[in-house]
């Protein structure tokens, strides 16, 4: 084997006669029972380089997001009339981070933070409504000294503690899109989103107006889920309060679009005398609209309505198969919390937060054209910044 004694000789790395050096050459270093070869050294350098590249990968991927980091670091130049502020690091905790419904929300928080000259807030939480992951994300935000937190409170019990912990640590917390069981159920400073119960109540009033009397069905994807259950509760209460002779049923449809469609069709087949079909979540609304079209029920005088602006729903409203859907303006649910948290920070907590109802806009055949014709950041289907003309 090798004639040269490894490191001890004048530094020759290549050993004549073979790649292995004898193990006794390394005894002074304490590695008497290992064998190092050129190949192993090269491999280790490659692997070490790969490990060392992780931080650069992370930095590269973060660059387009403006690199949010734990804690306020450098300051930004002042914008508008505002004083110079540190790089406030806000964190949005969401229950379905990759759901397309929240794409406009992300655009909203991007635009707001760009306006205020602060880094883009971090968008984190769970992809699958896993409350534990959301709680962990909130705790990490608190440990990382976030400057403000916006959280979708989909579970009152679970978030009560973490929200209080954040407030105790001096971090303002607002809720958006979902607010647990309502005002006062958690210690959050304000709620930015649709007044869930209120919008359900308005829908209930509209049902009474449109249908008048007879059997009506209210579909809900997953009963008990705190961002849709209050809507159905509101509708039910409005119908009851009006005293109208309407018998209504609340039917669960499931969390996935295809099964919702099947459930709604099955219900219709069993209740062909229904006078009104309504839904309180995006998927069920689309399902109702599709069933209305399939059996041409609008022409037969059946009324229908629902929530949120799935493209198919909007198209079918335009075609006359559904009477209305309700927009909750997800763009604003990202836009306003950033402003509220910013003003809260610069005013030392004296101002900034305010209960904000982002929407109870009834989208009907009269005003649906605008939504259908344009693609925009506000609806989430286009990234470009542009000014939209109102639809004619």
């Amino acid at each position, binding site marked *: 084997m090798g004639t040269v004694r490894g490191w001890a000789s004048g530094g020759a790395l290549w050993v004549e006669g073979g790649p292995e050096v004898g193990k006794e050459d390394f005894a002074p270093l304490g590695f*008497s029972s290992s064998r190092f070869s050129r190949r192993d050294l090269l*491999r280790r350098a490659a*692997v070490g380089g790969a490990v060392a590249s992780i931080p650069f990968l992370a930095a590269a991927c973060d660059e387009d997001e403006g690199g949010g980091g734990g804690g306020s670091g450098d300051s930004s130049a002042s914008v508008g009339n505002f004083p110079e502020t540190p790089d406030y690091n806000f964190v949005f905790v969401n229950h379905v*981070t990759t759901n397309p419904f929240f794409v406009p929300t992300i655009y909203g928080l991007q635009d707001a933070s760009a306006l205020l000259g602060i880094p883009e807030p*971090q968008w984190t*939480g769970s992809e*699958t409504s896993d409350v534990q992951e959301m709680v962990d994300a909130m*705790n990490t935000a608190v*440990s990382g000294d976030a400057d403000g937190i916006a959280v979708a409170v989909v579970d009152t019990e679970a978030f009560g503690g973490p929200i209080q912990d954040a407030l105790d640590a001096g971090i303002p917390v607002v809720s958006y899109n979902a607010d647990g069981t309502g005002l006062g159920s958690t210690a959050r400073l304000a709620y930015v989103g649709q007044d869930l119960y209120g919008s359900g109540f308005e829908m209930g009033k509209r049902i009474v107006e449109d249908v008048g009397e007879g059997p009506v069905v209210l579909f809900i994807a997953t009963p008990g889920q705190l961002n849709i*259950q209050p809507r159905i509760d509101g509708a039910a209460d409005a119908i009851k309060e009006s005293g109208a002779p309407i018998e209504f049923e609340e039917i669960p449809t499931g969390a996935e679009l295809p099964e919702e469609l099947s459930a709604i069709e099955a219900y219709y087949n069993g209740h062909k005398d229904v006078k009104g079909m309504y839904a309180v979540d995006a998927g069920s609304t689309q399902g109702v609209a599709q069933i209305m079209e399939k059996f041409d029920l609008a022409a037969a005088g059946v009324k229908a309505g629902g929530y949120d602006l799935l493209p198919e729903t909007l198209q079918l409203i335009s075609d006359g198969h559904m009477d209305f859907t309700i927009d909750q303006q997800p763009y604003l649910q990202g836009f306003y919390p950033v402003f509220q948290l910013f003003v809260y920070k610069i005013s030392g907590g004296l101002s900034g937060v305010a209960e904000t109802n982002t929407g109870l806009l009834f989208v009907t055949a009269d005003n649906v054209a605008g939504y259908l014709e344009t693609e925009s950041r506000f609806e989430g289907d286009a990234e470009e910044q542009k000014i939209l003309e109102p639809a004619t």
Partner: protein
Amino acid sequence: MAKQATEEISKVDPVNTDGRGLNGVARLATALLRRREASIALVAILLLFYFQSVNDAFLSQGNIRGLAQSGYATAIIACGLVMLLICGEIDLSVGSVMGFTPIIVYLADQEFVFPVAVIVALIVTSLVGLLNGVITVYLRVPSFVTTLGTLFLLTGLNVSLTDGFPKPAPEESTLTRILGGGPYSGIIWALIVVLLMHLLLTRMRWGLHTFAVGGNLVGASEAGVRVNRVKIGNFMLCSVLGGLAGIMEAIRINSVDPLAGGPNVMFLAVSAAVIGGTALAGGSGTIIGAFFGTAVLTILRNGFTLQGVSANTFNIILGISILVAMTLNVYVGRLRRTGRT
């Protein structure tokens, strides 16, 4: 594979053939580096240093608590999965069991006092494991398929039993503080479970039989090992550990959530076990390795969230990091093996 098992059990002896003595520290270091878990432990330590260097809030007390709280459930479940993986089986339903057990606790709590409710729930959970084991072993359905079925069954049960609505966690008491209520109770439980399972696997007959069943099923059976009993027992053990983790998580977040656990937790736990050095095909495995594997995954997830990585790029970075960490792990492992005389 059985040979590797005996290697772990036998003493490591860094003998110096040319007579020069190593001092105690070098000998200990060499002995530690010889262990198969050394590579993954090294990766975990490197990651700790990296994240601390990037963000000095990483090792703050609050974040250490956060790390402990987000990782302990996966660690406990990974221990159970290691036992099953060594046997050559897998349990896909353990994530759903994690959501199932707290629901049973909630229901039993209406009838009985809380400690009894916990025991009842764990017994019911072990029956789930028994079901998995019996169908796999006696009906000869591959465990992947069996546990896939129980996964869906339990996911559906979780939602029906609670009507889809999260239920309040049990009222605070000393027992709840021990079972996940206290800030560090989860990680202490995880460490106890890891220690006990490690002893079970490496020092007790059950562990030896588990390796035997995984390494050579027919040979073990011929040698007199009660193969069926070992497999069913490991299924029950895995489910009970999943249930325990589920109860602690429910108490920690103060809510019995029908959507808790799920396939994601199971994937993380299997990944932790495999990253730690357990072979997916069976026959070899390590509990300590699974613990460090969990540590690696938890540190990665927590570290990147702390650094401000948003959801859309999060998974990209996590995936790349796992690949890099695993490659490093495999190479260091190979280095360790080539170092043997």
